[in-house]
């Protein structure tokens, strides 16, 4: 079964509000990454957090990781219409080959 599960499946907010997306996974990981996919485009890497890290920031993005709960959250502050996209978490499992397993994504709509 897939490793990452994002929640919610879809999120609709107004510009300026914060958006929080959650990701849960099943097995031990080396790292967890978040990617963005604009409609009809490829995925773009946003941020990577390693299993020994608890929080990471990049611009308006804040990612947390709780390995005891096997969960992560992505917070986008002061959202903009250009943030409208699907957001995916991806995990690099400790076992097996070094490859990423993606969740189904959260579709974020930011209205002006």
């Amino acid at each position, binding site marked *: 079964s*897939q490793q990452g599960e994002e929640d919610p499946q879809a999120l609709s907010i107004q510009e300026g509000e914060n958006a929080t997306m959650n990701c849960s996974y099943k097995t031990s990981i*080396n*790292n967890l*990454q978040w*990617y963005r*996919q604009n409609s*009809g*485009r*490829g*995925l*773009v*890497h946003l941020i*990577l957090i390693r299993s020994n890290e608890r929080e990471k920031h990049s611009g308006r993005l804040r990612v947390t990781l709780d390995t005891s709960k096997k969960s992560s959250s992505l917070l986008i502050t002061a959202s903009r219409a250009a943030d409208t996209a*699907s957001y*995916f978490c991806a995990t*690099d499992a400790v076992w097996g*080959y*070094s*490859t*990423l*397993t*993606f969740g*189904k*994504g959260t579709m974020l709509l930011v209205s002006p």
Partner: protein
Amino acid sequence: DTAVSQTPKYLVTQMGNDKSIKCEQNLGHDTMYWYKQDSKKFLKIMFSYNNKELIINETVPNRFSPKSPDKAHLNLHINSLELGDSAVYFCASSPPGQGADTQYFGPGTRLTVL
């Protein structure tokens, strides 16, 4: 100066045909991947190549055959196309020695099998 490029962007074909999708990266990466994204946006790894050698083949039907002529290219050939092959196929690459660290994706190829 495109980092990871794929051709074609759209591919519409009949069931039973054979088609190829090409991928090239100019990032100097050693590892390249093919992913399939279905209509529900679920993204699944199909193949991984490192320095032209197959590392991962995730239970993909043998109608799918990747070919890596050099480490900058990873092409995907599909024989006897089926309706269920309709999806968006993404090529990706990652830097040497970083395993499943940051991956760089191509723009995708939308395959429609009629």
